């Protein structure tokens, strides 16, 4: 892989962000709204619930960490959608850029934009509602890593779906985190899910993260074995997503979809 090729994809996003407040604002605005909304809800719940349980790390923390995963996914897909919206895919895929370089560029772009969001999220939640991710102990580091990797995997898989199904498939991608959240036990333990949902929950790496963080907020210990499993599972999802993108690109090259992308289908 050539760093200069990857840097070209990142530079494109920097140019777009630099010249467009409408692209910069959403990196922070939705996070700020979520912090405010869930911050006040948890504060209210703390006021009416029996004393001794702090809803701030349990609920606000969970919301924000799930939000973080969503932002990572969107960071990757947004970078890809920019090429879809500007009808740039033909020029990209006719250049010497390899598929791995292109996807790596999208992923690094997603990491940069989501890190910005993470900083704002931590600052706001800490200043306004006293949430500190440090209250989760060292487990927060592998936890964030898992959410990072799974968010990237979702973003790459989502981009592949849009590449295959055409620009109109965007609407399938935006709600992906919301569709997965009931299975990822963001707000409740996996054991509270019906039997048929539990295997699905354990197939999702974020479930392990939220189970662990929830245990910590209730005075328990971090389950590093579970986090290691989640990390491994995330790597599997990431590899599968990359393989899916390469497969879809191959299909699109065989059936001519890249050359006729706006048609959405050539069959």
């Amino acid at each position, binding site marked *: 892989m*050539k760093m*200069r*090729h990857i*840097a*070209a994809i990142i*530079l*494109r996003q920097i*140019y*777009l962000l630099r*010249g*467009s407040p409408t692209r910069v604002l959403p990196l922070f605005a939705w996070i700020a709204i979520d912090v405010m909304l869930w911050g006040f809800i948890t504060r209210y719940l703390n006021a009416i619930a029996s004393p001794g349980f702090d809803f701030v790390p349990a609920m606000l923390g969970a919301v924000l960490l799930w939000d973080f995963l969503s932002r990572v996914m969107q960071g990757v897909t947004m970078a890809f959608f*920019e*090429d879809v919206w*500007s*009808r*740039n895919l*033909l*020029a*990209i*895929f*006719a*250049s*010497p*850029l*390899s598929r791995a370089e292109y996807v790596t560029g999208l992923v690094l772009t997603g990491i940069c934009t989501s890190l910005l969001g993470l900083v704002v999220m931590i600052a706001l939640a800490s200043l306004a509602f006293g949430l500190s991710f440090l209250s989760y102990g060292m487990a927060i580091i592998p936890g964030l890593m898992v959410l990072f990797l799974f968010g990237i995997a979702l973003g790459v898989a989502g981009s592949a779906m849009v590449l295959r199904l055409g620009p109109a498939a965007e609407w399938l991608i935006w709600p992906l985190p919301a569709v997965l959240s009931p299975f990822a036990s963001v707000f409740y333990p996996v054991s509270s899910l019906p039997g048929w949902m539990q295997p699905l929950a354990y197939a999702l790496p974020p479930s392990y993260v939220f189970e662990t963080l929830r245990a910590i907020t209730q005075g328990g210990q971090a389950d590093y074995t579970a986090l290691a499993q989640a990390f491994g599972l995330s790597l599997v999802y990431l590899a599968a997503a990359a393989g899916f993108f390469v497969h879809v690109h191959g299909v699109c*090259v*065989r*059936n*001519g979809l*890249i*050359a006729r992308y706006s048609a959405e289908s*050539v*069959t």
Partner: protein
Amino acid sequence: MTKSALSQPALKVDHLSKSFLGRTVVDDLSFSIAPGEIVGLVGLNGAGKTTTINMILGVLAPSYGNVAIAGVDLGAHREEALAQTNFSAVYAPLPGNLTVVQNLRIFGMMYDVPELSARIDEMVEMFDLTRYRNTRCGLLSSGEQTRVSLAKALLNKPRLLLLDEPTASIDPSTADTIRNHIRDYAQRERGAVLWTSHNMYEVAAVCTRMMLLSRGRILIEGDPRELPGKHGMASLEDLFIDLSRGSDEEIAP
């Protein structure tokens, strides 16, 4: 360009075919282009010109056959082969939300252009884009956008330049200037050019050789200035019309 680079064809297309759902769009096409040659690829709409170009660009896989760019097999060494080429087409505009220089910088990085800033300045000047350097491409007229696209296409001094109707949306004066730039490029850099056009005057003025494509096959091939006389026609346009209608009647039930 090295002597060994000049000794092999800039483009070698070998028994190239493409079928979609049983319909053959490009049918056993074989040709090559030498360094410095400008070859016109003409034909009716749907003759297979753009499909051929897409296969040479690696964005469409052939059903059968091979493409080699400067001796590098496209199927086996995609990135290495595509580094030797570049293209401009009306259906592939550069992103309108980036400025001229931003677009050229990004594509210059993708094509590994050395001393990129100096090369961008050179291209901007060559295509008379200096006053639009920092203008977003989406704000430019279609003719100006074509010039930016051509500047991008020449950024990496490609061994093979693919131009799909490059002067389709520009005024005659600018089109003439562009033709001169491409001719100069082919002569000075010994770059090969595959040029599709519906403008027979342009093909005769620019191309050293032309191929008339019909239903995915080469119908005739030769020097566009000599072909009309050889077939008893007054002009290349008359020959094009005659052969295109003839090929349609031949296939009609």
